[in-house]
């Protein structure tokens, strides 16, 4: 190339004004790019997120047709949009059937497993005071061993009706949810571990216990506030 390097010859320090001007131009161009990308994709991204979330929640609460997101804290239960920043707030999802009746509650639980956090979404039925199903949100457990928490039918039956009743003064669970050795489940609040995947099974139990201990006492006095689905979701067939 015959052309010289573009940078200005040495010795000629660029004036501050030129630098500021250039940076200003760059910042403007970049700002426009970012904001337009953000605005352009916002709708799709939000829709994608909502669909993914709904799919996950509807899978653990069969028969649900719509859902709303809430935050429970000491101050009570409020829709997520209003209470996002509440101190110690626990996020959960209320699912409704086609007639608008509360079908169940879904919330996320997480605990350290074998390789990383195991995150599950569990369904809670307030009428039966029991957990009625789980779905795995994410995990990095060993394929073939730890991922049995998704595939092992026997393990999943633990969550057909896992007892999470509250104690008399509604301050905590009446019985700690606990993972026990494979084949020794005696109580409805125990989880029968998968043989050979004890660490992961225990993580699921611990995560659910931690989450339920925090969420359910906050939720119990406020169940009536969950009411009916917001109007928008009625559209879904």
């Amino acid at each position, binding site marked *: 190339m015959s052309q010289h390097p573009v940078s200005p010859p040495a010795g000629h320090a660029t004036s501050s004004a030129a630098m500021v001007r250039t940076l200003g131009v760059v910042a403007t161009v970049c700002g426009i790019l970012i904001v337009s990308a953000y605005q352009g994709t916002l709708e799709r991204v939000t829709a994608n997120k909502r669909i993914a979330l709904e799919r996950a929640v509807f899978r653990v609460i069969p028969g649900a047709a719509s859902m709303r997101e809430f935050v429970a804290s000491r101050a009570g239960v409020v829709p997520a949009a209003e209470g996002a920043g509440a101190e110690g707030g626990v996020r959960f999802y209320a699912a409704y059937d086609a007639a608008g009746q509360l079908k169940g509650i879904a919330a996320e639980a997480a605990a350290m497993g*074998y*390789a990383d956090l195991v995150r599950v979404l569990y369904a809670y039925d307030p009428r039966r005071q029991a957990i009625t199903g789980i779905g795995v949100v994410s995990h990095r457990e*060993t*394929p073939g*061993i730890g991922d049995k928490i998704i595939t092992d039918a026997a393990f999943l039956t633990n969550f057909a009706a896992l007892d999470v009743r509250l104690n008399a003064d509604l301050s905590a669970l009446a019985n700690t949810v606990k993972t026990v*050795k494979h084949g020794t489940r005696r109580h409805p609040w125990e989880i029968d571990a998968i043989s*050979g995947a004890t660490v992961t099974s225990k993580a699921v139990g611990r995560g659910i216990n931690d989450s339920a201990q925090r969420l359910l006492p906050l939720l119990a006095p406020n169940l009536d506030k969950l009411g009916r689905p917001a109007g928008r979701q009625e559209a879904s067939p």
Partner: protein
Amino acid sequence: MKAPIELRSSPHVKRGVSVERIMRNVVLALLPICAFAVWQYGLSALALIVTVTATCLATERFFNWMAGRPGTLSDWSAAITGLLLALTLPPAFPLWMGAVAGFAAIALGKALFGGLGQNVFNPALVGRAFVQAAFPVSISTWVPAFAPGRFAEFIPTTFTLPLMAPPDISAWAKGALDGFTGATPLALWKFENQVTPPDAFLSGAATASAGETTAVLILLGGLYLVARRFMDWRIPVAVLGSAALAAWAFQLWDPARYPDPGFVLLSGGLMLGAAFMATDMATSPVTPLGVWIYGALIGVVTVMIRYFGGLTEGVMYAILLGNALVPLIDQYTPPRVFGDVKGTKP
């Protein structure tokens, strides 16, 4: 006490005769353990030992040919790797996976670095760690020792087609021996808080890898090598001593939760690892103080992984981590003065 120090001090052993002699004796010390493993587990164990060793030899041959070096099969080192590796595998391990382990052991553990004496990790353990990560289900599938039909039939998983998943044999294993639980003593302790009595380890009835239940034979083999000055006695002593000490301290702290040191020493692969793998000359420290540090580290890390990790057994990883630390240990411990005589403390 001249021979061991001379030989240990240099990884680049030029005197092929000495290397060959040591290696041959190590194989000799391993053979009774192999024979006992075959007696315990029958045809499948024999097939596994033969396959893994043959793969190691073939891989060694192949890489020598690639590098245009003369064959080094005659130094027995690849055979040792093969035998040791086979002894650390569960007897029901499919043969094709055993072959993968053998290949990984030599290729990743040895050939990569230029062959004998140049490797930085114990090759047998590299192979074991590779298949542990690759086939986590198969490597924790156990079968009972002394099953009545062990010399009449192979374990159903042995002849799994290459690349294919082995069949589930838990029902078969229960049928092969009454009351078989399919869990190793370490898993029983960790997840069910049951301590296996020591006599199960001495008789070989404990559920384990092919060569891990024979504490007596391992000790005898080790003693033989020490007596003939082919092995640095300090390493196994440091490994076992520190593991026992750590176990003892934990037991003092909470006797209900932690088992006694005897259980820690006898269970799993600690004996085999301490005697035959941690002592690998190329991958252990050169300085006398370094040797003690290295051994103690392996013992303590093993106990830590067993007690607090997700895995039931930690010897393999402890030794590999020890291997990784060897250059640092050598760097920061005072080197042996040339011509130093054994017994003078550094």
